[in-house]
């Protein structure tokens, strides 16, 4: 509870500070913004967010803290349910992105809004094309691009096609594109997530130049060292609320981390000390490169033993998904080795892996975990429909399957009227229970659970966590990936922390780990030595 009282003081400090700066001019002020999505999820709760002219303001928080929603509201992609937005002192109503652009607010999305086969110049002027009588003057577009590129000292080849450019340059085009439209405020949504360190350095230089020219920048990130390096002020969101606004230089990275990762509700799970046995899964020097040539998984080595839960903590998008997809064979072209019971899986099919009693809960429930249009029954039997026990004389044994599925529905407490309903009629939590019923009921020896409780209700989450522990007690090896720190700490026996595709920490006893500690590792503030990291490999 120490962290909570600490936060309290911090917030008072922040309040005092913000009163001091009230006299200064805010270019932008969002007041009491509340946004409730149609499924009832409250993404922003009375958020106050103020940005001064000419600063680089960091907006930080964990996944799901409400950063993106707040920025969507600002950029006109979502409408707030209550609250007001003031821009340059005037109350405004931002109904769509065009209104935002006209007012002078531009956004660089995480997924670039560029047309790959068009050239840089063509992308730059899209929507405001130069030319007369319906014609498009490409020359003019190139000239405009070169002019603006020179003006802001952001060199770019105006006639190159977007698809031939490295990611860093694509981002530069995005920035130039909104500069061309004459904006004063730039929103950058996790711009460094897709960049290499060198590209990040380059971006920071550019942003500092823009700041000197008087632009205001809102920088969304959860990498604290970047924020320390770049930003003037910061606002922290947690669970849809603002937990503080402060000058970056007034806080240490540790203090910021605490503001981000504190929790309102604490869960505890009763479990005995793990009794690890033989190694089931071992990963050796595993790397993987995405289609842009970025090294998303970076030289990972670890092992998971029967009878233990190894948690992987980390901010989402730090290589966890690619790691679990590689183990489940949904992703190809691995570099390094993945061994199951000491045998490489590189040449094995997904069916062969599953037959060795490997279960996989994908974090992407809609793409991999379920068939939206199929029934609950059809969703449950996808990994076992072909087995002898469920087939009789060329046909599937409907009676046996029915009993099996009904038992699972009961055991996993799926709330539905019938097994024959399409799974899309279920709530998110119940849908996930169906996935879990399939993956946990095959007597698994290794469970790969990636974000098993994300976006589902408390009851279902607790149920799934307890099941994981039960499976462990029955002798399964469990690899739990989660961005929910509370969950990782409570459920896991040992924890590995991933940051930027690498393992940065191995914490042998999860019971003794605090969220603050994890926060420092996953946000890249601290890193263990190679000797400490070697302990995660049990051979």
């Amino acid at each position: 509870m120490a962290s909570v009282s600490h936060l309290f003081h911090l917030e008072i400090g922040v309040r005092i500070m913000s009163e001091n700066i009230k006299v200064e001019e805010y270019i932008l002020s969002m007041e009491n913004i509340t946004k409730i999505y149609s499924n009832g999820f409250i993404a922003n709760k009375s958020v106050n967010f103020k940005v001064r002219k000419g600063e680089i303001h960091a907006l930080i928080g964990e996944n799901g803290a409400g950063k993106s929603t707040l920025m969507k509201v600002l950029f006109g992609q979502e409408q707030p349910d209550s609250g007001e937005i003031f821009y340059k002192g005037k109350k405004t109503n931002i109904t769509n992105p065009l209104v935002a652009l006209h007012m002078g607010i531009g956004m660089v999305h995480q997924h670039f809004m560029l047309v790959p086969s068009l050239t840089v110049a063509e992308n730059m002027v899209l929507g405001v094309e130069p030319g007369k009588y319906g014609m498009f003057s490409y020359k003019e577009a190139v000239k405009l691009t070169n002019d603006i590129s020179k003006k802001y000292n952001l060199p770019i080849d105006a006639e190159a096609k977007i698809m031939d450019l490295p990611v860093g340059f694509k981002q530069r085009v995005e920035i130039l594109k909104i500069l061309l439209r004459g904006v004063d405020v730039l929103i950058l949504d996790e711009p460094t997530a897709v960049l290499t360190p060198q590209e990040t350095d380059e971006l920071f230089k550019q942003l500092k130049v823009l700041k000197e020219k008087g632009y205001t920048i809102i920088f969304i990130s959860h990498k604290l060292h970047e924020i320390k390096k770049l930003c003037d002020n910061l606002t922290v969101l947690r669970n849809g609320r603002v937990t503080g606004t402060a000058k970056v230089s007034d806080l240490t990275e540790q203090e910021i981390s605490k503001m981000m990762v504190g929790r309102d509700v604490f869960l505890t799970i009763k479990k005995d000390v793990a009794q690890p046995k033989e190694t089931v899964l071992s990963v050796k020097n595993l790397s993987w490169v995405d289609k842009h040539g970025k090294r998303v998984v970076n030289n990972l080595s670890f092992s998971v033993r029967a009878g233990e839960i190894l948690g992987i903590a980390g901010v989402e998008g730090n290589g966890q998904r690619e790691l679990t997809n590689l183990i489940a064979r949904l992703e190809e072209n691995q570099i390094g080795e993945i061994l199951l019971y000491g045998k490489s899986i590189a040449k094995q099919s997904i069916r062969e892996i599953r037959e060795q009693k490997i279960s996989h809960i994908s974090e992407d429930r809609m793409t991999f975990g379920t068939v939206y249009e199929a029934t609950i029954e059809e969703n449950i039997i996808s990994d076992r429909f072909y087995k002898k026990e469920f087939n009789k004389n060329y046909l599937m044994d409907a009676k046996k399957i029915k009993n099996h599925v009904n038992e699972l529905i009961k055991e996993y407490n799926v709330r539905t009227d019938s097994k024959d309903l399409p799974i899309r009629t279920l709530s998110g939590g119940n849908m996930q229970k169906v996935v879990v019923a399939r993956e946990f009921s095959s007597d698994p020896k290794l469970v790969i659970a990636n974000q098993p409780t994300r976006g589902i209700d408390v009851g279902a989450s607790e149920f799934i966590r307890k099941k994981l522990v039960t499976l462990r007690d029955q002798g399964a090896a469990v690899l739990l990936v989660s961005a929910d720190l509370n969950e990782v700490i409570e459920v896991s026996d040992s924890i590995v922390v991933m940051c930027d595709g690498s393992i940065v920490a191995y914490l042998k006893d999860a019971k003794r780990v605090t969220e603050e500690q994890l926060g420092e590792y996953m946000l890249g503030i601290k890193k263990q030595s190679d000797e400490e990291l070697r302990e995660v490999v049990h051979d």
Partner: protein
Amino acid sequence: MINKIENQFKFIRIAISISIALLLAFLIISFVSKDPLFAMYNLIIGPFENIRRVGNIVELMIPLLFTGVGVSIMYSAGQINMASEGAFFLGGVAAAYVSVTFLLPYGIHPVVAMIAGGLIGGLIGLIPAILFVKFKALPVVSSLMLNYISYFLGMYVIHYIIFDPETGYLSSFLYKETAILPKLFSVTRIHWGLVIGLIVVVLGYLFLKKSKWGYAIRMIGMNPNFAQYSGINVGFYILLCQLIGGAIAGIGGAVEQLGMYSRFQYQKLSGHGFDGVLVAILANYNPKFVPLAAFFIAYVRVGADVMARNSDVPIEIVSIIQAVIIVFVASERFLAGWKHRKIVKASQERFASEEA
């Protein structure tokens, strides 16, 4: 409750689509016909006026049973493959070849002819799937091109291998009597193909809806990523179901030749494969409903035929009806608002009753 609405919705959408199509047909008829009421009477009641016409409906329905089931299986894997048309045509040619050149006893002869038709049909169905899995070639376009190739290939066989110069038009020799499928009833031309077709419907239903292979195929059609994740070999099943669907269409072509004709005399593609697409759409890709859908299409055909012969409205009104049905049934948004309101209302009632 929601499940009920979902099921209702599918049927209502099809029913309303058919109604719109018929209404539009009436509208057109009243424009072009001098005696529209008489024409409409012929279209709707005409097919049931005597036993021979009812027989015509069943005769027309038989080939559609095959192509309808074949296309249902092909499309269940999410492959829009039009090769059922070429498969049906070449299946017929293969059967014609076997019937003309082979000397086999009664009973065996048609079976061999049907096997030949099934083999060539399966091959034709498989080709676009291979081109898709291996080369990412668009199945719609490649299969349509393949249909023309199938047509010319078939015509070559008729023209140069089993051509009968005596008839005065492009046709094959007479089929040997041993190969002909016998008639079932004396008044009509309904033949044993009906029995074979219904067996195919049952087998197709069991395969697609009750067997492990059918399950895998349907999951691939609905979400190939999920199928892959679950350990299903996606490429293999896509090839398998296109092969089987094509084979069924090919057998259908053979049955049609042996049951309805005494020599091969098609001068162009017969359109049964395309009609199979329509039948499959109406049956919601479920072989169980194929007989009903095939009967309906055959009924409309015969009705239009009766109308064309007795009045001044040409039979091509059928394609207008077909086109209108397809576009409405294939439309996601059509009546979606109605469904949404219904579900919202049901949920609200549920909340109300739970609170009370």
